[in-house]
């Protein structure tokens, strides 16, 4: 591991984003706009407060999944990855650089969406806003790690985008956002038990619903972190120095 290479990678990715202002604007504003839309669809601050926390976790997860899989795929198809693999760059330097850059973007994204939800849309958070940010950053990390991993199985950007419904939508459907997990049939309940997003959403609901830090909260966070690290390790395994 080399901190200077990691930071250089982070800076490089942020620079790439800087040259693409349209993407930046969409990254920062789209989740917020969707929150606003949702608030008026429900037309009730109480109902909104019920689903908003889960959404704050789902957005960075989905968006980071997409961005990370496309960025990595591009890196693979344009040959820049091959070039980097001939250089003194460790796989984890690259992954950590990605994680830092995208994590930063996710935090900004959530800050804006959370701020608008809290001050304007009537979301109430009992716990600390910091824990909320921590959980969403972990969510973003999870999405990024999964995106990176699946990009190894895509050869075109079309395929990479198609992986989203496969890997992300089932998790979003089963995470307790649409239906409490306890009310699902045993099979769906079991499925949602093995999907990391469920734990992230539960953690978010706990933070918004209660002021205390509980043991379940810690467990949920550890599950999300563990899954993110596992996906990162799998992602690292797909970054090969030698290819066929």
């Amino acid at each position, binding site marked *: 591991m080399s901190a*200077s*290479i990691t930071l*250089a*990678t982070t*800076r*490089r990715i942020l*620079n*790439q984003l800087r*040259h*693409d202002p349209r993407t930046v604007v969409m990254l920062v504003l789209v989740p917020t706009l969707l929150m606003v839309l949702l608030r008026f669809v429900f037309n009730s601050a109480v109902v909104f407060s019920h689903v908003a926390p889960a959404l704050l976790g789902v957005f960075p997860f989905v968006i980071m999944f997409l961005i990370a899989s496309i960025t990595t795929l591009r890196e693979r198809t*344009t*040959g*820049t990855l*091959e*070039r*980097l*693999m*001939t*250089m*003194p*760059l460790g796989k984890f330097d690259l992954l950590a650089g990605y994680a830092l850059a995208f994590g930063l973007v996710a935090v900004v994204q959530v800050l804006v969406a959370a701020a608008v939800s809290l001050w304007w849309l009537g979301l109430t958070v009992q716990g600390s806003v910091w824990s909320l940010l921590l959980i969403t950053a972990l969510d973003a990390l999870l999405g990024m790690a999964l995106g990176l991993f699946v990009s190894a199985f895509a050869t075109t950007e079309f395929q990479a985008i198609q992986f989203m419904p496969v890997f992300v939508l089932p998790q979003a459907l089963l995470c307790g956002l649409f239906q409490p997990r306890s009310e699902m049939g045993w099979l769906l309940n079991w499925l949602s038990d093995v999907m990391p997003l469920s734990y992230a959403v539960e953690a978010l609901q706990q933070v918004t619903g209660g002021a205390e830090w509980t043991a379940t909260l810690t467990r949920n966070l550890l599950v999300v972190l563990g899954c993110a690290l596992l996906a990162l390790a799998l992602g690292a395994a797909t970054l090969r*120095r*030698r*290819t*066929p």
Partner: protein
Amino acid sequence: MTNSAIVVAGLRVIRGGRDVLRDLSFTVEPGSVTGLLGPSGCGKTTLMRAIVGVQLTHGGSVTVLGEPAGSKPLRNRIGYATQNPAVYADLTITESLRYFASVLGAPRASVAEVIEQVGLTSHADVLVGQLSGGQRGRASLAVALLGSPELLVLDEPTVGLDPVLREHLWDLFHRLAAQGTTLVVSSHVMDEAARCTRLLLMREGVLLADDSPDALRAETGQQDLEQAFLHLVREKEHTS
């Protein structure tokens, strides 16, 4: 021969179920400019990938600067320019090079230096995506030059360039070789062969010739290297 820059022995590579390199053996001397020539699809890129250590191989060995190809100690001693320009399209030339320089641990000042060497100083702050094909190729070449590597592996670096620029780059290559850098340069174009000190002529994954341009002319009795190559191909077909 431990002081050869590259030793390839019995190298075999299979890609997509086909034998792409079959039992290839040769050595490259330090400070030489070796031209890798042959028809499209004969395995030039595959061989270069094996030398820089990103190609899965299926037999034989490649030793570069005394170390196994692709091993850690080699990673800032080799510069590689891929056939398709590999630079970030959404960064400026300078930003892209700065990134690669930090990865290589090359001094920051070397960025402006290599941009100058490939003649892109006037475009240093232009997005790579907005460059012409030839300019993009040169930006990619500049990355390979970063950090003054001991070995340069350049895959068709002069494709799509005008005669003036080609001349300029070949001068650069020879200047670098005179300073002790070893260069392996692939090309389709036979008139570039004459500029190399050594030629490796490849066809369908085997070497047809491994000689200096003059020796090749003498051996085949052809003044023109393109004719010499065709001569070798016909000779090979007769004997097999």
